[in-house]
C-alpha cells in the first residue's frame, strides 16, 4: 500500500454564488504522479490553490501524513512541503532571477543585517542546476527572459526546498519541448524519491503518458479516479464531460482546395532577430496553419502580419477589392477587418480587472458606436451572443475577467475577435488551455468562419490541430519556411517534426 502524502476531506469553496468545489475528498500518494483533469471551470486550479495555501477553503479539512494541515499562505504551504507552479505568470517583474527564486526567503542569506547577494546568486545557480537548466544567468533581470524561461524560474523556485508534494497547473501548454522535458524529468525524479506530484492538463495524451493515476473533476465535484491500467482516452473524456464524446473533433473533409483570391500577402519579411525573407499568401476562405518550435519565429511572424511589430525589410499587404492596404499598425488592421489572438493572454489580450463585457466588446466598440458614442442596445446582445456561443462559464457578464478559470479567459479573447466579424483572423495558439469540449466547439466555429469565406492563419505548436484543421501547413524553422504540406488529414506528426528541428 502506498503512503498517503496528502488527504483532502470534504473541501468546499464558494465564490459568492459560484460553487467552485463541492465536498471534494481525495488522497494523493507518495511515489505517484497523479493527473487532475476536468473541463474549464471545473475547479482544478481552485483545488490546487487551496492545497498550496493561496486561498483557504470555505469548509473542509486537509491532512498531511495524517496530521492536520492548514497553510495560511503559499509561503507557509511551501514551508510545510507543498509547492505549486501556477497557471498564470507567477514571477515578479523588474527584479533579478535570483531574487525571484528566493523571494520571501531572503532571511536565509543574511550577513549581518544585509542580504548576501553572492551567496544568494550561488544558491540560485545551484537551484537551476538541480532542475537541469544551464541556459540562464541568475544575476539577469527576469524581464529579459522569454515566457518559457520565466516558467522555468518558477520551477526552480518551487523545487528548491524539496517539496513533498508538487502541483503543476497547466504549465506545459506554455512550454516548448525543452521546457516540458525539464518538467517531466523533475516530476519523475520526485516520484522516484517517493514524493507526490499532481499535474493538471487538458492534453489527455500527455496525462496518459506521464501519470500513474488520474482524478477527474466535473463542476467542482470529484467524479472518479482511474489507475494506470484503466486509463484510456475515451474513458477519461467521457468522465470529464459526462456523456459520450466523439474522438474526432477536427474538420472531417479532406478537401484543401481554396479560392485563387489572395487576401493577405507578405513579401520578403525580415527581422533583426529571426525572420529571414518570409513570403506568404493567404487565400480567401483558407485555413493556413503555421507550425514550428517556439523559437522558430512563427509567433513574431503573426505579430508582424497584424502590425504590432515592424519588420526591418519587406511588407504585409491586405488585398481589398478596390485597393491594397499596407499593414503598419493594429488599429489600422482592425479597421480593415483583421483580428489577432495573442499567445500571451493575460498580458496582451485581456483587461484582467474589468468586466467580461468590457473585454468582449473592446475591439468592436467602433463598430457599435454612432457619432463616437457606444450603443448599449447593441453592446449587451453582442456580449450575450459570445457568452452563449462559446459557453463562457461565468456568474454574469459583469464579472471581472480575473474571476474566470484559465480556459474561460481564453474564450473571452476568442469571443472578442468573433464579435468584430473580422474577415482575416490571425490566431496564435488559439486553443491554449481550453478543454476538449470547447476545443471542438472552437474548431467547428473556425470551420464555419472558413465556410463563410473568412480567412484564418492558425499558428500553433500542436501539430495534431494543424493537421486536423488546415488547408495548407507551412513549417517554419530558424526564421524560414522549410516545408509546405497540402491538406491531408492522414499526415503523421513525425513526418512534420523532421522539418522543424
Amino acid at each position: 500500500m502506498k503512503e498517503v502524502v496528502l488527504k483532502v476531506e470534504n473541501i468546499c469553496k464558494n465564490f459568492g454564488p459560484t460553487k467552485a468545489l463541492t465536498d471534494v475528498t481525495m488522497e494523493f500518494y507518495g511515489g505517484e504522479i497523479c493527473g487532475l483533469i476536468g473541463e474549464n471551470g471545473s475547479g482544478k486550479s481552485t483545488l490546487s490553490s487551496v492545497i498550496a495555501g493561496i486561498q483557504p477553503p470555505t469548509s473542509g479539512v486537509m491532512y498531511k501524513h495524517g496530521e492536520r494541515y492548514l497553510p495560511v499562505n503559499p509561503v507557509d504551504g511551501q514551508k510545510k512541503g507543498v509547492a505549486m507552479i501556477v497557471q498564470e505568470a507567477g514571477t515578479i517583474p523588474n527584479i533579478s532571477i535570483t531574487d525571484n527564486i528566493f523571494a520571501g526567503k531572503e532571511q536565509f542569506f543574511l550577513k549581518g543585517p544585509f542580504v548576501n547577494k553572492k551567496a544568494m546568486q550561488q544558491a540560485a545557480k545551484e537551484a537551476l542546476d538541480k532542475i537541469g537548466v544551464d541556459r540562464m544567468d541568475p544575476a539577469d533581470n527576469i524581464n529579459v527572459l522569454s515566457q518559457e524561461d520565466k516558467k522555468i524560474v518558477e520551477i526552480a523556485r518551487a523545487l528548491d526546498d524539496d517539496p513533498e508534494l508538487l502541483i503543476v497547473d497547466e504549465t506545459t501548454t506554455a512550454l516548448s519541448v525543452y521546457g516540458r522535458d525539464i518538467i517531466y524529468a523533475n516530476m519523475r525524479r520526485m516520484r522516484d524519491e517517493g514524493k507526490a506530484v499532481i499535474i493538471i492538463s487538458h492534453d489527455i495524451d500527455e496525462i496518459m503518458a506521464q501519470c500513474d493515476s488520474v482524478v477527474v473533476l466535473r463542476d467542482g465535484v470529484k467524479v472518479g479516479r482511474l489507475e494506470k491500467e484503466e486509463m484510456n482516452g475515451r474513458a477519461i473524456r467521457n468522465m470529464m464531460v459526462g456523456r459520450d464524446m466523439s474522438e474526432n473533433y477536427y474538420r472531417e473533409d479532406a478537401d484543401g482546395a481554396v479560392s485563387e483570391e489572395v487576401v493577405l500577402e507578405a513579401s520578403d519579411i525580415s527581422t533583426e532577430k529571426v525572420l529571414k525573407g518570409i513570403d506568404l499568401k493567404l487565400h480567401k476562405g483558407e485555413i493556413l496553419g503555421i507550425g514550428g518550435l517556439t523559437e522558430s519565429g512563427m509567433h513574431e511572424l503573426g505579430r508582424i502580419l497584424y502590425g504590432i511589430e515592424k519588420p526591418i525589410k519587406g511588407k504585409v499587404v491586405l488585398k481589398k477589392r478596390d485597393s491594397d492596404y499596407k499593414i503598419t499598425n493594429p488599429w489600422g488592421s482592425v479597421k480593415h477587418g483583421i483580428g489577432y489572438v495573442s499567445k500571451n493572454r493575460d498580458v496582451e489580450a485581456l483587461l484582467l480587472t474589468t468586466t467580461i463585457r468590457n473585454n468582449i466588446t473592446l475591439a468592436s466598440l467602433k463598430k457599435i458606436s454612432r457619432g463616437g458614442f457606444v450603443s448599449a442596445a447593441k453592446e449587451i446582445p453582442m456580449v450575450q451572443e459570445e457568452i452563449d456561443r462559446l459557453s463562457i462559464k461565468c456568474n454574469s457578464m459583469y464579472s471581472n475577467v480575473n474571476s474566470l478559470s484559465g480556459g474561460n479567459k481564453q474564450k473571452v479573447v476568442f469571443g472578442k475577435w468573433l464579435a468584430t466579424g473580422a474577415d482575416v483572423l490571425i490566431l496564435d495558439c488559439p486553443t491554449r488551455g481550453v478543454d476538449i469540449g470547447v476545443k471542438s466547439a472552437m474548431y467547428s466555429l473556425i470551420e464555419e468562419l472558413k465556410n463563410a469565406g473568412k480567412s484564418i492563419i492558425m499558428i500553433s505548436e500542436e501539430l495534431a490541430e494543424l493537421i486536423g484543421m488546415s488547408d495548407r501547413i507551412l513549417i517554419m524553422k530558424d526564421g524560414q519556411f522549410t516545408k509546405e504540406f497540402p491538406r491531408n488529414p492522414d499526415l503523421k506528426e513525425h513526418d512534420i517534426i523532421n522539418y522543424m528541428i
Partner: protein
Amino acid sequence: MMRNRQIAVFEDNDMQEYIKNNRNVVTPIIGMILVILVFGFATGWKNYTANNLQTILNQSYSLAILAMGLIFIFAHGGIDFSCASVMAFSGLIAGLLMQIGVPVVICGIACVLVGTICSVITGALTVVFGVPAFISSICMMNICRGIVMAVIATNAVSVTVDVSAFKSWPVKIIVLIVVFIVTTFLLSKSLIGRYNKAIGENSVAAEQSGISVKKYRLLAYMISGVCVGIAAFFLLCRTGRMATGFANGLQLEVIVALMLGGLPPRGGYRSNIVSAIAGPLILTVLGNGLVILGMDDLMTEGIKGLVFLAVVFVNYRGSSESITGLFGKIGLDSKKMLLK
C-alpha cells in the same frame, strides 16, 4: 416575439457583480454626505449660512470643473500637475483681451482655447515624445506660471468690463451641470472615455485590440484642457484680477480631491465622474468646517492630510489598486526616463 434582451438579461447576478464593481462610487457619496452632516452638526449648522455656503461652493467650483476634465487623463493612467498654472495663463490671456475691449464671450472662448492648447502641448510631449507625464506637466506648470509672473510684473491685469453674468450662480450652476453631463456621457458612453479607461487597464491589450492609444490619450488631454479653460474664466471673473498666485495650489488639491472621491490611482474602468463631484465637496466642506471650528491653517492642513490617508486606506486596502499606485506611477515614470 422579440424579447427586450437588454432588460431581460440584467438579472440578480448581474446586479451583484455590478454593485461589486462600483463600490468605489458608492463609498465617496456616503463619505460626502457624512462629512456634510458631521460638520453641520459640529458647527451647529453655522457653516451652511447663505454666505458660507457661497464660499464653499466657490471653492469647490473650480476644483470640480478641473477634476471632471482631469479624470480623463487619470483614466488612462496619466497625471497632470500643470492645470493650475495653465488656468493662470489662460486667465491672463482672457484678462488682456478684456482690457483691449474684446467682447466678454469671445474672451471666454479664448480662455478655453488657450487652456486646451496648453494641455494638448503637455499631452503631446508625453504621448508623442515619450516624456513622462509628471515631468512634462511640471514643465508646462513652470512655463505658464513664469509667463504670468513676467507679464503682471510690468502691467496689472484686471477685469475692467462687466462680467456679472459669469459671477451669477444660475449661470455657474448651469455651466457646472452641462460640464457634468457632457463629461459623464463622454467618460461612460463615448469611445474617448471607454478607450481611455481601457488604456488605463492595460495599454498593451488596448493597443492590440485596435485602439490608437496615442490619439486617444491626446484627446483626454484635450478634454482636460477645455475644463481648465472654463475653470480659469470663472475664477478670473470672480476674483476680478490676475495675480501671481492665481489658482496656485489647485494642481495638488484637485488630485487629492479625486483620490478622496474614490478615483483609482491607476485609472481604468473604475474611473467615474462622481469622484469629481464628491471629492471636491468633501475637501472644501472639511477645510471650511475646520476653520469655522477655530482651527488654524496648519492644523487644517494636517487634519486634511489625515483624512486623506484614512480614506485612501479604506478605499484601496486589499485591492489591486493600492495606494502605492499613485506614487508607483511617478516612480515608474522616472525609472523609465532614467533608463532612456
